């Protein structure tokens, strides 16, 4: 979108058409120079052969894209669990009064703990540790432990996002709800949470993007997903192009989400500005 759209133009200010042309030209020149530097480097032919091999690309892409379906299942199932568990933790952590001190203590420990541990470590510990106990009836499917590990780690982050949202709702909103005779739970459910969640949708989407990428970590416990599949293809072809296929898949999936997040943030800003003048 041209930057000057909607603003009155003064003499000497470039027209919208001109700014667009300048933007296009400078972009072409910039990326042209970068491409030229890369392509004319001494190592380029070797890099091109091992990273951008068209034949390997075509032969490995179908199996890699198919393996990505495992990642999709992983992050969709985990995201549903994360959003629910994160909300429960955030609400429990926001309970006031001395009676709920143990609840706050436990949830705080949970959040601190799972934010401190590297995600891959949690995946390892659960994925190898629990089946390793060899208890009767305990499942061994790595996919299950992958979902659990990602849910534990990400719900800790997401609960903090929710909590920030809850605290951003002014206490007078709760007072207004309670003054009608609503219980604390009803006030939370109908007045506070709807406002809180709406405000934190952009950061929740950000964490969702992070989750999508972190699904590749579960390849360490033997889930054959996109990263594992591209490793298999790389080893079979003695060529790194399969990793470029994987990179492309993630770019295609996450960039629209990132754009959507930006659009939502911009919309919130406009709404707040509109609400402020009244």
């Amino acid at each position, binding site marked *: 979108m041209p930057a000057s759209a909607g603003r009155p133009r003064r003499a000497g200010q470039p027209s919208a058409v001109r700014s667009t042309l300048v933007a296009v030209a400078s972009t072409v020149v910039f990326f042209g120079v970068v491409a030229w530097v890369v392509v004319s480097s001494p190592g380029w032919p070797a890099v091109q052969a091992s990273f951008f091999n068209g034949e390997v690309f075509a032969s490995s892409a179908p199996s890699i894209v198919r393996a990505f379906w495992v990642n999709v299942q992983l992050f969709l199932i985990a995201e549903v669990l994360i959003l629910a568990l994160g909300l429960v933790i955030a609400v429990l952590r926001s309970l006031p009064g001395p009676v709920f001190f143990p609840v706050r203590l436990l949830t705080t420990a949970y959040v601190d703990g799972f934010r401190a541990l590297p995600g891959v470590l949690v995946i390892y510990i659960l994925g190898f540790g629990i089946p390793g106990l060899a208890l009767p009836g305990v499942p061994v499917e790595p996919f299950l432990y992958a979902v659990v590990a990602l849910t534990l780690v990400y719900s800790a982050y997401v609960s903090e996002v929710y909590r920030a949202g809850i605290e951003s709702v002014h206490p007078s909103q709760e007072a207004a*709800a309670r*003054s009608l*005779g609503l219980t604390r739970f009803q006030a939370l459910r109908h007045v506070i949470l709807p*406002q809180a969640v709406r405000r934190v949708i952009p950061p929740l989407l950000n964490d969702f993007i992070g989750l999508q990428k972190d699904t590749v970590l579960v390849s360490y416990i033997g889930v054959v997903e996109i990263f594992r599949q591209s490793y298999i293809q790389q080893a079979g072809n003695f060529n790194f192009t399969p990793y470029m296929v994987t990179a492309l898949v993630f770019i295609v999936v996450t960039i629209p989400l990132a754009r959507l997040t930006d659009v939502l943030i911009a919309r919130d800003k406009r709404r707040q500005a509109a609400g402020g003048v009244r």
Partner: protein
Amino acid sequence: MTAPRPGLSPVGAPHAATTAAVGPGEGPALVIEGLRKSFGKLEVLRGIDLVLAEHEVVCLIGASGSGKSTLLRCVNLLEPIDAGRIVVEGEEITAPGVDVNRIRRRIGIVFQAFNLFPHMSVLDNVTLGPRKALRLAPAEAEARALEFLERIGLADKAREFPDRLSGGQQQRVAIARALAMRPDLLLLDEITSALDPELVGEVLRLVRELAEGGMTMLIATHEMGFARDIASRVCFLDAGRILEEGPPAAMFSAPREERTRQFLRRIVEAGRL
């Protein structure tokens, strides 16, 4: 326009009203006795005694920070009290073990800053209490809400969101929200203070209609002309005590206490009397 209702305007020394306000055959709508409230070391209410008869309208006046909002919030149990007791329609609402949600359903409060729910339509704002606290069927709650929106002249805004309304309209919706609970007692906390001057009239007109309809109201206000018109009694709150009270005519023309005179003089200078 609203002459003080005969028989409901106890005249006399402060706190003598405790018995005078009770009409024959019906108890007072509200009794406050020895109410004390502190925030940390700051004692904001230092022994409040006040009685409102059924259908009585009492205005609280006093400087900013004198404790008007705190008093109203205590009556609605939004603040726990430190000492004293509050009795509404014969029931002690400050007794231990009382269900605060049930009490709050009977006592409406309207805030200075409206505090409408911004994520809900006007209609949902008004039906929320009846649906969730009174557990009315949605259709019934909606019919009731529309009836009140009709009365405040905003039925055509039922589907709008609060941020599409003017301040005066928002405050009228907040009043309708409180009324939809059909409360025994309505508390109004400086409900015109956040409004542009040209929007004050529409809100005060609505409150006048409520008074004429017999609603029992305790009103914190800086609108002295309004207080003079509508109140059967005016209480001057100073440093957490009711320093002086009486019918508005007497209070505004011949206040006994020097502090009251000072306060009223400042109000006159600000052009509000």
